[in-house]
């Protein structure tokens, strides 16, 4: 790579890194707590987590249970 192209690329890299360094961040403990809270709040709606009653599952074949 000639010096021309890499100088340009480096200048842009420096600008990009300055942008990224200026991002506002929160602590992992707070971020983790919020991810967890979202999971807990929506767990009951998550059919793959808790399953759904047989009647409302569109993919299940209708089953009958005959008690004789």
């Amino acid at each position, binding site marked *: 790579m000639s010096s*021309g*192209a890499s*100088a*340009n690329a480096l200048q842009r890299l420096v600008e990009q890194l300055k942008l*990224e360094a200026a991002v506002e961040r929160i602590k992992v403990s707070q971020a983790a707590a919020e991810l967890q809270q979202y*999971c807990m709040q929506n767990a009951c709606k998550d059919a793959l987590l808790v399953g759904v009653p047989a009647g409302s599952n569109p993919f299940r074949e209708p089953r009958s249970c005959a008690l004789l």
Partner: protein
Amino acid sequence: MCDQTFLVNVFGSCDKCFKQRALRPVFKKSQQLSYCSTCAEIMATEGLHENETLASLKSEAESLKGKLEEERAKLHDVELHQVAERVEALGQFVMKTRRTLKGHGNKVLCMDWCKDKRRIVSSSQEHAVTMPCTWVMACAYAPSGCAIACGGLDNKCSVYPLTFDKNENMAAKKKSVAMHTNYLSACSFTNSDMQILTASGDGTCALWDVESGQLLQSFHGHGADVLCLDLAPSETGNTFVSGGCDKKAMVWDMRSGQCVQAFETHESDINSVRYYPSGDAFASGSDDATCRLYDLRADREVAIYSKESIIFGASSVDFSLSGRLLFAGYNDYTINVWDVLKGSRVSILFGHENRVSTLRVSPDGTAFCSGSWDHTLRVRDAFLFSCV
């Protein structure tokens, strides 16, 4: 995964000296020009300020990278799985295959759900009449359900309006929307049928207007092929995440074309990225056999989903509705289900007879579909013992 890289040589008249040479793009006050290598060298030396040299730019870049790591590390006060210690562990998981779709004549490469949750579009390595190339690597359903977009080795993304009229030739109504200089690896409609976001082996992503085929925005920054992308859930604004062969996951602002955050912790190509349902984080699956979770507000990786026994690459990932489960398809034909919070594997699903290449949870979260090189798609859900 990428097997080839293509080098594009542009020949033409230099914008400065007008001689016929091999050209490279240069930026002068944010305008892109094409200079021959001689003029580019001259411009570079003119463009640098008095005390700036290549060396000082490099060292500034290094120190900025170091500063970035330091800032991120300062906030790393705890691990996600530690915070989740008090959360109840998940019980025994039983997932059952409800449908096995066999219609493809070859490897299934991509799939997407229609918002009506009843229809799926899938693409494969076929010798089909309608597509001009054999590898259709990306496909997506329009939000209205009235069209699909797909593309691959033809370097294009084309939109096909859907019709249930058997007499209509779908290929005739095809509209070419996106043009890249290398293969199309991923595509997605934005919130409407009017715009498409694409990712390509040429290292860029792009936003296109479907009606006019016009390029609305391009996203430059990846150092190699871009393999995947995912749009942020609509409530969280106009961003998307992309993953590439340069091992980087990058978050982009769709309006400005700017990369707002970048993450480089994977050790190999990133094959799949997917936003966490709240939009505050995203997961990635990579050829390094791990999946990782990156939190956007903490600006760092917060979890790694891996096991010593898992040595094959993860090709595709998706979250369940609540974000508690991460489904990941692997090249060893299995699907691993991970507890996102605790970092542990809750289940391993078998059934496919070749690589799992694509995996998506349905829009309402009741089922998920996996596509494989074994030519089939399998729809699975959580088996619930119930008395009817």
